[in-house]
């Protein structure tokens, strides 16, 4: 079946199988391997992408559902070589260890900041509650998001 969608700012058109998940389409067809599979059942958030600006688990979305939508993956977050301020703050605050959860975290946090540029700590937590990290202890991630919000507001 035909799927037409905007991927990281570019119009794309592909033929896919009905059973294929969005994560498979992104990873296997477009080679966008920044989208990680941590569980495959919507419980870890490693596969998070933005679909029409909202963070979704791409392991729970069928590729066909992406039709007519706008998808942004982690590869579409930086402007070329220049990191987004959120990405920069992830580095500064040591919010990154093994990095497996990082793309999903960055995307969930981006979605939040796009919709709510000045979130409270609780709102930050709610936004990334679906993203598991086994390495960091989350503190640094919350701090990185907070700082980004602060910078944008200023």
């Amino acid at each position, binding site marked *: 079946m035909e799927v037409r969608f905007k991927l990281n700012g570019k119009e794309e058109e592909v033929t896919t199988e009905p059973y294929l998940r969005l994560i498979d389409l992104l*990873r296997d067809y477009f*080679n*966008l*391997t*920044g*989208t*990680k*599979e*941590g*569980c*495959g*059942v919507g*419980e*870890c958030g*490693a596969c998070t992408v933005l679909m029409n600006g909202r963070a979704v688990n791409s392991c729970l979305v069928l590729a066909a559902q992406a039709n007519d939508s706008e998808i942004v*993956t*982690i*590869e579409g*977050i*930086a402007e070329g070589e220049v*990191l987004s301020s959120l*990405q920069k703050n*992830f*580095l*500064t*605050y*040591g*919010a*990154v*260890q*093994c*990095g*497996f*959860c*990082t*793309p999903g975290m*960055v995307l969930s946090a981006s979605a939040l900041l796009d919709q709510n540029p000045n979130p409270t700590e609780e709102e930050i*937590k709610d936004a*990334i*509650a679906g*993203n*598991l*990290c*086994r*390495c*960091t*202890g*989350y*503190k*640094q*991630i*919350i701090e990185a998001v907070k700082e980004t919000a602060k910078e944008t507001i200023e």
Partner: protein
Amino acid sequence: MKNYDSIRHTRGESLFVDDIASPEGTLFGYVFYSSVAHGKILNLDFSNAWYVDGIKGIFSAKDIPGENQIGGIVRDENLFAEDTVHFIGHPIALVVAETFLQAHEAVKKIKCEFEKLPAVFDPREAAAKDQLIVKPRIFSLGNVDDAWNSCDYVFEGSAESGGQEHLYLETQASLAFPIEGGGIKIISSTQGPTTVQRTAAQVLALPMHKIEVDVIRLGGGFGGKEDQATPWAVMAALAALKLNAPVKLILPRQEDIRITGKRHPYSSDFKIGLTKDGKIIAYEATYYQNAGAAADLSPAILDRTLFHCTNSYFIPNVKATALSCRTNLTPFTAFRGFGGPQGMFVIESAIHKAAQKMGVDPSVIQKKNLLNEGDEFPYGQKTLNCHIKKCYEEVETRYNPKEIYQRIAEFNEKNKLVKKGAAIIPVTFGISFTTTFLNQASALVHLYTDGSVSVSSAAIEMGQGVNEKLRMIAANELSISIERIKIESTNTSRASNTSATAASKGTDLNGFAVIDACKILIERLRKVASEELKQTNPEKIEFKNEIVFHAGEKTGLTFSKLVKAAYSKRISLTAQAHHSTPNIYFDTKVNKGEPFAYHTYGTAIVEVTLDCLRGIYKVDSVKVVHDFGETINRTIDLSQAEGGIVQGIGWMTCEELKWNNEGKLLTDSLSTYKVPDIYAVPKEIKIHFLENVPNPFGPNKSKAIGEPPFMYGIGAYFALVNAMKAFNPNLDLNYSAPLTPEKVLLTLYNKRQIGRE
């Protein structure tokens, strides 16, 4: 300073095994395993599986060209079960197909009949049946039997600590493909590339040089990929060899949770004797380690329980006995702390119990017994540069526990249904593999003619930041910009006979090797520089920030020019160095020696708030003073410590493994096995770096950081118990972790006691 890999991580550009562009024609594997905990295989029928589209091969024990053996310490573990299965999840066959879905489909079509045999899941029951992995291990100091009489108080009790699933976010993963000359290259998410290489060679009946293992990075390891990345890598290699095609084997999350090993559950008894004023005179403990169905690393983990049986205390009379009990569960394995946390939990339980009975705060007993310089551990080593008292006292001055206790008492006075509790936990952790020969590593450094530098070592990057630390060490040693330095993947053809990156020793061992290799290069470059500068004494040459100095004077010669000059003079720009930790030994016959290069110290105070109606709780704060030595990289060390603390709290509180009566793991998904999520994070984590404590035994005076902070999590357990006591002072508790909200609630209302049922 950021982690070297982290820029690519935030861009989604870093590659994990499953992200590597697979070679053309890559096939996919899926493991078929036992559904009974103990049984005879009566009939194994693959015929229906062969009808599945895309199926390429099914491999079981009889297809193994070499030995069907993967046990490292004890040869008691098959790659594939032969006629008997020993746990649910025991691999029986690997199915390989063109796609992952086809392989999975075929696995579902395999028929296997078992004749069930009696199974044992409880370590004490296993011990009673003499099902021990190794002979009991005993560490002792002084003479406990004589000491009990001189004690004013003697208390006995038991303590249980549960297992823990690693839940590395990247599941076990490997990709194997045939290479020229009948060899196999394996890309694996392993902490132990040589273990994979050696085991694959043994199973495939190939010499080790025909197996090349390459590791880029791991999406988390925590010990779970020290030994247990091996079977999957070897299975992929076997299929690749047999089918002459690339084979990828990635465990889906649920399978990974079901069939791979976890932290060992322990059941232990203790007896503690003290004087009236809280001095511990004697301590006796027996640990029943649930090893699961095969030895794996259990004997070494058992030993570390003994090494840490007295945590941060000097106790003159100790007898600690540890039994590794064979049960019919997945072979348990390494997990951050490696048996140490289990040992510490028992002594802290004993101290807590004694304090309760004596009517004092546990901190009174803790403080009375902290290690002093020169004190002897039960394994014969004496403390050197012992900072535990400094850490404990610094916690007192910085965080003021008295005031905290006061505040909590007032709060508890005012609030009926919400209670607070606090606990202090000192941690002393020995650094080195206690298996002495493992304390070695190597590094290979290339200087290229354009001035860029490549560093290879035995260290595996799994999020702990070892790559960045090695880069900093090399930049410092060569006195060049860090940007010139690239850390290569860990590859068995560049670093041979590696020890796993484990025991918090990655940076220590490999860092020293990198320093040594750089020193060799510096020596050569000095000579070249003195020739270039027409000087006679290379000793007068120095390098500072990429510039060559002679006799303290800046010269026009730079690092890049010098490298080119060396090349023209046909001087080798490659150096390899091997490092082994000096002066350590351990005699396992008498269980005495100096197994550790040094110890790391720290103390934390943990505060919790408990909702006594619902049993739910919140860790309010964890305030720490930790001895990092002289940190190489503050950001990395801090985030290692914070991550470790949260994982330790998880082990003690929410992470509960449950099996049914048949030995089937019930908590086999992220929705049933609860690791700390973002809401579980302590509201406040404060970590103070103990000042002026250079470590003479660490690279650039640093200390290892991977494991020790994990044990601060034990503080959360006792803080919770104290909050529970505030609600119900008559609570008679046994010590049993994890203290899940459910268990808290039942205990609060004396519905069921904490502890073994």
